[in-house]
């Protein structure tokens, strides 16, 4: 079984270089389409391309979408945070469904969630020295 590791490999270098060449070529084609006047393209025979308006509109749409998604991500996180009066801040389905089987004397107790009352007693009621 091959381990998954982030170390550089020859295959990854080849993929990276292919992507680099492809993206540079794609950008060159995009600039070509944006700058060459329509008549020259029509005279060669390439007639069915999008309007030149999109050469400007598409990058602007992408950048604005990036800015808005940053703000929206922050907003979604704030929306999903449980309010102070929700039970999710205290316990959840997994903690309530855990089995508390008795352990053998002298053995290590099973790893489990400690209830918040116990935690509070330990923190605030045990005598501080």
């Amino acid at each position: 079984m091959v381990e998954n590791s982030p170390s550089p490999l020859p295959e990854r270098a080849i993929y990276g270089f292919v992507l680099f060449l492809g993206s540079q070529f794609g950008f060159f084609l995009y600039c070509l389409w944006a700058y060459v006047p329509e008549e020259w393209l029509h005279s060669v025979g390439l007639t069915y391309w999008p309007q030149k308006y999109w050469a400007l509109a598409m990058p602007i749409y992408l950048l604005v979408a990036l800015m808005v998604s940053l703000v929206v991500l922050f907003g979604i996180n704030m929306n999903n945070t449980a309010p102070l009066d929700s039970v999710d801040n205290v316990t959840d389905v997994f903690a309530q469904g855990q089995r508390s089987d008795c352990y053998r004397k002298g053995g290590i107790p099973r790893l489990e969630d400690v209830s918040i009352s116990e935690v509070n007693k330990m923190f605030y009621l045990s005598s501080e020295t």
Partner: protein
Amino acid sequence: MEDEALSNISGKAISLDCQTHSSFCREFTVSSPKMSIGKVMVYTCSVWLLAYGVFFFTENTAVLSSAILITLTGMMLHIHFVKVDHESLLVIGSLGIQVSSSYASGREVTTFIEMSRIKDIVINEAVYLNQIIYYLCVLLKEPSEPNVVSSVVPLFQSSKPRLNCLAKVYKSCQEILSKCQ
């Protein structure tokens, strides 16, 4: 009667007053800082200057009178519905607890929770906006299922005291709850 520089989560000074009415009845009152006259003046002056600026360009006197009306009604609504003067927690062993918050205009909102519905009063930590705060809350249970927390009622929501104040109230409450539950 115990004020050792207690503050709320933003750093403003608050005060805590603990009264022991009897061996099984205690009352805790947390008072928020009062409205400062300077802040009121700044808000009023800025709104009125803005209104005067708009009047200067539009020459419409309705702008001035509406600005006055807006500031007056805004202040009245604020002190009646928003500005909390003090919040109190009254714990009566084996009877229940009463939570009350009184606003700056004198309005009081009171809630009573009977002891059979109370599982515990604990200090919990939760995410609040961009920080994690400690807050005191009552864990409620249904009498039919005593081991399950059915809902949570946070206390002292408007004054939001810090941990030193909450720990005092918690220890005091637990003395009564452990005896009478």
